[in-house]
């Protein structure tokens, strides 16, 4: 821990602000929550590699459905929103409220773009025949990415409220910076979860000619 951090040590038995400690404990529990969802998705992908059957009865493979360009764009957007969030927290620590507002607006904007991409992706998948009910893949995929999307939406709402709250003049000083830092922790967490989802759910589908899980079809000897 640096000297400057020690200078801002909270008057608690742990030396950590209670709000911050609670937030980290919440994030640890959320880690377990997402760990379970990601594990479930990966295991069912391995057990049922065949993909899904669309409304016309055709067997479809997820490899042909994913759009790596769109998902990469979403990932880039979320990473950059995390960067802006770090700048917003830094600005609050320095007492630069205008800089904070600018950066938070950027985070909100990027968060909304990410959500827009997810809505587009879900709509596209639905029209292609992948629903939450018609396959194990659909169930685990929508539940996992939908839960993450809900977290992003909650983060966006939180930051919108914080943005407007900053105009009341009550979001200042060390406690104001702490409130922003806690919102930032949540936002960064959403970002790190997506880092894992991007690799474990999306990128692995492109490995090899039929993705890492295969197609589920019997291998024909040549």
């Amino acid at each position: 821990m640096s000297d400057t951090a020690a200078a801002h040590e909270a008057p608690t038995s742990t030396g950590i602000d209670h709000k911050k400690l609670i937030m980290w404990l919440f994030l640890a529990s959320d880690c377990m929550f997402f760990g379970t969802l990601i594990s479930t998705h990966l295991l069912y992908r391995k057990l049922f590699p065949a993909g899904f059957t669309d409304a016309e009865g055709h067997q479809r493979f997820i490899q042909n459905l994913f759009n790596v360009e769109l998902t990469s764009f979403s990932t880039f957007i979320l990473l950059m929103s995390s960067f802006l969030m770090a700048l917003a927290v830094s600005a609050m620590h320095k007492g630069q409220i205008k800089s904070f507002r600018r950066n938070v607006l950027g985070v909100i904007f990027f968060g909304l773009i990410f959500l827009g991409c997810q809505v587009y992706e879900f709509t596209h998948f639905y029209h292609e025949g992948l629903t939450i009910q018609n396959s194990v893949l659909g169930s685990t995929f929508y539940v996992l990415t939908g839960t993450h999307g809900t977290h992003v939406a909650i983060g966006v709402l939180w930051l919108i409220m914080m943005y407007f709250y900053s105009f009341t003049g009550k979001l200042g000083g060390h406690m104001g910076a702490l409130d922003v830092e806690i919102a930032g922790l949540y936002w960064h967490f959403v970002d790190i979860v997506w880092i894992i989802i991007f690799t474990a759910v999306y990128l692995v589908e492109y490995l090899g000619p039929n993705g890492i899980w295969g197609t589920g079809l019997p291998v024909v000897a040549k």
Partner: protein
Amino acid sequence: MSSSHEAAPSQDFLAEEVRRYHHFIVLALWLAVVTGAEIVLIFLPIPVAAILTILTLMSAGKFFAVILWFMHLIYDKRLLFWCFFAGLALAFATYAAMIMLFSVDRIDTRWFS
């Protein structure tokens, strides 16, 4: 929510914040480059096991870079790191346990269909 009648931040604290600011910029660029490299990597004609290993290392690197710098864990008390690490360890343990329980070579998936 907060009180605004507090002392202005010290010069040392401001200098530290400026130093972190530069770290954040470098890290953001690094994250963008690694993400780009991941996308290129999946299309390279090299063995799947090698790609998977590199992808795992890259995403683990990005994951820890964000929690250490953007989430300030490197600047904060160690207790916070261990609190978070406990959740992370349990998440990985869950995955490892499920992999063992549902070993794909032994399970009969006809049960589910």
